[in-house]
């Protein structure tokens, strides 16, 4: 792809202002925020995408405007766009009144359709694309749940969705050769519950549609009623398949909002946790793929590897029964010296075991043949909005750890493994080699782990240290206050992200100087994957569908929330 690019930020601001009447609000932490009128929305998105190569739509966030009255209420939309070549992020803001319609941007990005549906079902903003259907909720929901002045109600009774049917497929008559069938939501080879309704031509998949919402909890609404400490502990519980990334990401977000500086030691330990997580996710994905094949030798090796890895998780306190070690500004307790020594001594053995496993698989003709699914070109991958290992398997070299380094990722040496064809085998191959790179990073971190504090206190909070608790009753009260209410979040709109095992995961937060966030939104890579999944599985063989699904490492909890 042609990604040559010379525009600096100043030129962008000047030119964009000439093309579209708007204004630059502020320029904080490298994020430009453009404020435009809502009639110019489609034009400006098109200009930014085609002329300035902001190819990635990172997220679309809607929230009801804080200055809201009964007669005049506005919904504000924030578009977060990213230029992949230099990882520059800009915010695009518009506001809509309740009776106005959002311009259809699903022609520019495939994910646009799902974002439009989500905005419609939670805020009641209709759109010109005529996709005013539910995405996450169901027929028993009355009202718009995330509006601040609207009290939505949900009747808790079993329900169907009336509006769900295949749009492009013809329902077959008795004599027709077409077949269509539904896959999921309860299926033994489908770990995550969503439903695919597809048309079948001979043994190939034709048109299909995806129904999600079987896991929808209303997490965002719940988090808007919870203080930041509550969110941290809920996210630790909500890890499901995401490991420790979510609590670490939330800590990072809050630290950036409250401007708590962290030491190198904290950054290093967090990197250790993140890399351990990455290995865990990749191993489980490969394990799930292996479970569908009849390769007993590889399964035995896999069991061995997982048992050894379980020991690391246990020593680091990352097993599920363990308590939440993450705090704003560090950790609950420091990493033990014995743990460091144990991991350093045995990580070489662990890598050898993984290599043994790989020898069984990578060159095995049976394995290659089973994973020969449809290929995805790099251009299509960018269009679909793939992220993480799935994108790298298509040959696009994009990794937040390299492109926009956070913590100490610019100081460690590692490589980004790439695939060539973008089929299921390449996805397996990239995951396998990322495990080696993660092992490399872990041994580099632990070899010279920086000294320093493991917990930094913020200047904003009046929290006292644990040693002074017995000195006076006031100290105890302050300590209790901090841990029951959490820190006050200063007025800000902030977007923060890190590289998960599946791709870039981000949290958008709008806070109003309150204990609770005004708007909280999780953004995961699987959301974008599933939005364009019907294009990905089209023309693929039906018998390969379970393996294909597992090779993508789908985590439904990032989608449904």
């Amino acid at each position, binding site marked *: 792809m042609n990604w040559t690019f010379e525009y600096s930020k100043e030129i962008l601001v000047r030119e964009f202002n000439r093309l579209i009447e708007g204004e630059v609000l502020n320029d904080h932490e490298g994020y430009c925020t453009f404020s435009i009128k809502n009639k110019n929305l489609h034009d400006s998105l098109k200009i930014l995408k085609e002329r300035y190569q902001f190819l990635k739509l990172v997220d679309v966030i809607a929230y009801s405007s804080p200055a809201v009255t009964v007669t005049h209420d506005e919904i504000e939309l924030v578009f977060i766009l990213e230029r992949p070549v230099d990882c520059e992020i800009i915010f695009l803001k518009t506001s809509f009144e309740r009776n106005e319609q959002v311009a259809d941007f699903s022609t520019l990005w495939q994910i646009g359709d799902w974002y439009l549906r989500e905005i419609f079902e939670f805020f009641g903003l209709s759109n010109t694309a005529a996709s005013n259907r539910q995405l996450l*909720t*169901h027929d*028993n929901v009355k009202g718009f*749940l995330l509006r601040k002045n609207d009290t*939505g109600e*949900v*009747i*808790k*009774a*079993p*329900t*169907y*969705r009336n509006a769900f049917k295949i749009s492009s497929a013809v329902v077959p008559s008795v004599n027709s050769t077409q077949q269509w069938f539904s896959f999921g*939501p*309860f299926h*033994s080879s489908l*770990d*995550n*519950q969503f439903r695919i309704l597809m048309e079948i031509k001979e043994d190939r998949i034709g048109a299909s549609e995806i129904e999600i*919402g*079987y*896991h*929808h*909890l*209303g*997490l965002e*609404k*719940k988090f808007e009623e919870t203080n930041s400490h509550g969110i941290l502990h*809920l996210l630790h*519980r*909500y890890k*499901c*398949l995401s490991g420790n990334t979510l609590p670490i990401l939330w800590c990072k977000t809050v630290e950036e909002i409250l401007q708590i500086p962290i030491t190198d030691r904290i950054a290093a330990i967090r990197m250790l946790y993140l890399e351990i997580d990455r290995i865990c996710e990749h191993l*489980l994905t490969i394990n799930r793929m292996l479970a569908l094949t009849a390769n007993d030798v590889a399964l035995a090796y896999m069991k061995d590897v997982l048992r050894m890895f379980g020991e690391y998780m246990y020593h680091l306190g990352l097993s*599920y*029964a363990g308590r939440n070690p993450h705090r704003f500004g560090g950790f609950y307790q420091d990493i033990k010296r014995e743990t460091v020594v144990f991991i350093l001594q045995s990580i070489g053995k662990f890598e050898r075991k993984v290599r043994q496993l790989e020898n069984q698989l990578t060159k095995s003709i049976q394995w290659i043949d089973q994973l020969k699914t449809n290929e995805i070109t790099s251009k299509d991958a960018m269009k679909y909005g793939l992220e993480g290992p799935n994108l790298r398997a298509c040959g696009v070299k994009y990794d937040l750890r390299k492109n926009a380094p956070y913590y100490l990722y610019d100081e460690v040496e590692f490589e980004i493994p790439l695939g060539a064809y973008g089929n299921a085998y390449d996805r397996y191959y990239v995951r396998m080699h990322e495990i080696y790179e993660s092992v490399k990073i872990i041994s580099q971190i632990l070899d010279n782990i920086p000294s320093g504090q493991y917990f930094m206190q913020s200047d904003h909070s009046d929290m006292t240290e644990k040693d002074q608790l017995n000195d006076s009753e006031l100290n105890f009260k302050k300590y209790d206050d901090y841990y029951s209410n959490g820190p006050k979040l200063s007025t800000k709109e902030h977007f923060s992200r890190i590289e998960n095992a599946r791709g870039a995961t981000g949290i958008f937060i709008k806070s109003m100087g309150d204990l609770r966030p005004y708007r909280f939104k999780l953004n995961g890579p699987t959301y974008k994957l599933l939005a364009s999944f019907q294009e990905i599985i089209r023309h693929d063989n039906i018998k390969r569908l379970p393996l294909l699904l597992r090779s993508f490492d789908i985590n*439904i*909890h990032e989608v449904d929330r």
Partner: protein
Amino acid sequence: MMEKIKRWSTRKNINAIVFGNGCCLHGDLSNDFHDLFAHSKYTLNMVDSPRQANYLFINGIINPLLLNVLLQVYEDMPDFKIVVALGNCASNAGAFNGYNAMTGVEKYIKVDYYLTGCPVDQRAIEHFMANLDDIIFKKSKENKE
């Protein structure tokens, strides 16, 4: 006589399905659970279809859309069915109780045993294993009536 053999076989064999939606147990029964069954006098078979299963383990939060699927799965199971709610989320929505989470599914299907805790304690599962004979006995009595 046939009745006796039938009861004996159902008692010793646990043909189970997990209606998981992503609890701490990674959507599948954890290895601990498997090991525990290995040491006891029962055998645990995970089957693919609800039509072959006598035991239904529910984990994770059930929302109105998923409840529909659960009811279908429950109907598909053969007559002798034992339902176990695994974990806080399945028992009473737990920490994630929100607008879309069902607080307990006992309104719609009969739950025989609750294993609460987040995550479920090992000792709770052991207690469940110890009481399994009683549960089966009670269940078969109910079925007769």
